[in-house]
């Protein structure tokens, strides 16, 4: 009889245990329910919702998405139904999904972020918050995570409001991302999530106009993978709280690279747009890799890069 090897894929993020380390990033998975029938939710570690803001947002002028040779630019601009709309229309369906659900929270002011978290504290079926301090499409002078002081202050304020897992999503558009991660850690967050998209632009030489309706946008997809992997590795080496790592992950081997670089969980974004069930595929791929490498616990693989 073939001996069955038990493989542990469970990872712990504060009080939350994920069945496996593969999560779907904000903006690439809607509120989950839109993808019913195409996705095996039971096999996904967690989904992170579309970012919600206090008031409904129409988003940026079209076109909003453009594929370049090796990546994807977007300038969606956090189109969402706003907090009340989400609570009424989306939350009841989100609660029914057989996976962990992290709500992505966005805003323009510290008060807005706090207001949303306070309101959601009273709602069931939310397994944690990912605070989006790094959307590149809000036309702000700077994103909150581009200031270490502001990142620290807001993280600390939100920490006081919730005992639920609190993750902070930060931008790679800084001189030293480790310093941003320190601010997140010092503020009391349970994990830091990186990277958000890189600022980017493309011009149509026929019309001499930018391809994106709002001129520039966030760059994601396979082109940014080496950039995000480096940043995840650097941050993971320097902070004590866990790192949720992503940026351009498409395949099992990409995902394993991020785990070896020190990520406790890995997030899929752009790839979900083409392959909504890719998270599930990657989970199976990670299992196969672990069997081959004779590793029974995913937690033994983390940070094992020989560097």
């Amino acid at each position: 009889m073939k001996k069955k090897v038990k493989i542990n894929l469970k990872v712990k993020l504060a009080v939350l245990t994920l069945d496996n380390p593969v999560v779907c990033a904000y903006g690439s998975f809607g509120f989950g329910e839109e993808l019913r029938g195409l996705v095996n939710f039971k096999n996904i570690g967690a989904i992170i919702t579309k970012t919600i803001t206090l008031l409904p947002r129409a988003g940026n002028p079209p076109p909003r998405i453009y594929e370049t040779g090796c990546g994807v630019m977007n300038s969606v601009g956090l189109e969402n139904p706003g907090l009340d709309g989400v609570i009424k229309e989306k939350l009841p369906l989100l609660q029914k999904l057989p996976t962990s659900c992290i709500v992505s929270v966005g805003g323009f002011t510290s008060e807005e972020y706090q207001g949303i978290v306070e309101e959601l504290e009273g709602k069931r079926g939310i397994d944690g918050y990912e605070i989006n301090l790094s959307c590149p499409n809000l036309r702000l002078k700077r994103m909150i995570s581009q200031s270490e002081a502001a990142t620290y202050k807001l993280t600390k304020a939100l920490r006081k409001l919730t005992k639920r897992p609190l993750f902070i999503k930060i931008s790679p558009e800084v001189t030293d991302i480790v310093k941003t991660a320190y601010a997140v850690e010092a503020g009391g967050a349970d994990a830091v999530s990186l990277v958000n998209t890189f600022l980017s632009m493309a011009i149509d030489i026929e019309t001499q106009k930018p391809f994106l309706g709002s001129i520039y946008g966030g760059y994601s997809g396979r082109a940014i993978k080496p950039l995000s992997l480096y940043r995840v590795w650097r941050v993971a080496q320097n902070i004590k709280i866990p790192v949720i790592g992503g940026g351009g992950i498409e395949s099992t081997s990409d995902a394993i690279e991020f785990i070896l670089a020190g990520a406790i969980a890995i997030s899929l974004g752009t790839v979900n747009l083409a392959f909504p069930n890719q998270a599930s595929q990657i989970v199976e791929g990670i299992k196969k890799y672990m069997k081959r490498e004779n590793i029974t616990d995913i937690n033994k693989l983390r940070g094992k890069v020989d560097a």
Partner: protein
Amino acid sequence: MKAKQLKVKVKDIKKVNDNIFLLSISSAYLASQSRPGQFLHFKIHSTILRRPLSVHRVKGKEAHVLFKIRGKGTEILSRYKKGEILDVIGPLGNGFFLKKAAAMETTNILVAGGIGVAPLMFLAEKLRGEKLVLLGAKTKKEIVCELEFRRVGCKVSVATEDGSKGIKGTATELLRKTLMGSEAGKINIYACGPQEMLSQINNVIDSHPVLECQVSFEQFMGCGLGVCCGCTIETKHGYKKVCKDGPVFNIKDVW
């Protein structure tokens, strides 16, 4: 009509002219479930996002897609060979709304600008009543499907920008002329083409009231499933998703 992610075989791929191709895929599901105006979302190798292409017509267990080389994705697709496998999600989008009781006294006018002809063939097959197709393109070479439309009982008029076939001008001008000689309020219009053409059609029908005008839009698209909000267009009711709210809209909901 639940969308499924399927692996389908290329049954045939034919060059129609310089840069327009007719792709046939084997899929009983897509052939039986697709409705006119809906699209299929193709994953083409060496690209990142899928490419949305409307269903041109269905035949037995095959779905046909007529596409023009517009960029890297469609260029690679044109080089697929018979027997190769494509990953496709579909059918997607809302398609054309077909009235059940097609009153005999109404006329259907189908207006195609360039490759906008693609979804209108499938529609022409399903529409009942009188059908007039107005084909517009830059040159004679780019006028496609004329014979096929006649075969399914349509009258066809042609316009080319260089005058190499039909009248010299655009499909919109053909529409203006047609509407001038017709009785107001007894015409249904279905159009697909560049956004500028659709906006001109809106101007034309303002001076010649019609029963209804449905238009199919195209836009750079992400997921095709309504989650990324990438493919929006601007309408008088705010931004709308081409993938989920469209690709077919009532023109009066847009302008």
